[in-house]
């Protein structure tokens, strides 16, 4: 993408100057207590929260999304999948809006394929929060059928309103359970995730 990344350790207290902060997926602290709960308090997060509040874009993928909700940077919480199973498969997602830093290269309502790989991905927020998210256009991605229909059958984990990803109020912080980076090269079997990173490169110039 022509933008060199800098890796930062969770125990570091400082971050280099960055156009974008990414909290990747994986597992942190063995998912003990609640997924992302302990990582949300790791030393580096103090600086991440400060930067996010100052307007620096922050992207959290999978465990990164869980960390962002636990850190209070995004609303809601990711709970155990309703199936109780670890789910690893490609899913269809609907891109809710294409006027954000992360989605400008997609079409509005475009159906894309990203993989999911999680056990705690069931998005929960209370009714008042869900109403606010819907009203303010903070839903980023929804699990959908191949034709774009938002159905119960297309919801892999019991997420409220089929929510797979949400923005903060300013849409600078995005968290999502699916992995765009895992289908971002033809060699990986698909390129639907590439546009998210192309959007960021274009918008952060």
């Amino acid at each position: 993408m022509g933008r060199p990344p800098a890796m930062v350790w969770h125990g570091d207290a400082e971050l280099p100057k960055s156009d974008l902060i990414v909290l990747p997926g994986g597992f942190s602290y063995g998912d003990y207590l609640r997924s992302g709960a302990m990582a949300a308090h790791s030393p580096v997060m103090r600086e991440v929260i400060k930067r996010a509040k100052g307007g620096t874009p922050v992207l959290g993928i999978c465990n990164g999304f869980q960390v962002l909700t636990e850190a209070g940077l995004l609303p809601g919480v990711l709970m155990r999948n309703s199936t109780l199973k670890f789910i690893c498969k490609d899913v269809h997602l609907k891109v809710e809006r294409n006027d954000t830093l992360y989605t400008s290269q997609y079409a509005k309502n475009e159906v894309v394929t990203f993989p999911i790989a999680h056990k705690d991905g069931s998005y929960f927020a209370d009714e008042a929060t869900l109403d606010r998210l819907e009203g303010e256009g903070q839903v980023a991605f929804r699990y959908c059928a191949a034709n774009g229909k938002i159905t119960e059958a297309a919801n892999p984990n019991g997420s409220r309103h089929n929510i797979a990803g949400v923005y903060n109020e300013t849409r600078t912080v995005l968290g999502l359970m699916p992995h765009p980076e895992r289908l971002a090269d033809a060699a990986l079997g698909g390129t639907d995730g590439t546009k998210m990173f192309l959007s960021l490169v274009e918008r952060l110039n």
Partner: protein
Amino acid sequence: MKARITITLKPGVLDPQGKAIAGALHALGFGQVGDVRQGKFIELDVAENDPKKAEAEIKRMCEQLLANTIIENYAYELEAA
């Protein structure tokens, strides 16, 4: 002091693990079992002898880390160690 902290899911929050436990109990013949909710129990020692101060600290621990108050309630008991 010793603190015994109980963390439970708020009413209305789906608990698929509780449902699975209920199903297993039914399969064992415990047909009288109704709704099952699973929570967490945490026991910890605090180096603090003043119950008021210990309580304030436990509360902060629950709010900051031990419970996620979006989905969970917490309760605690304190006892002299």
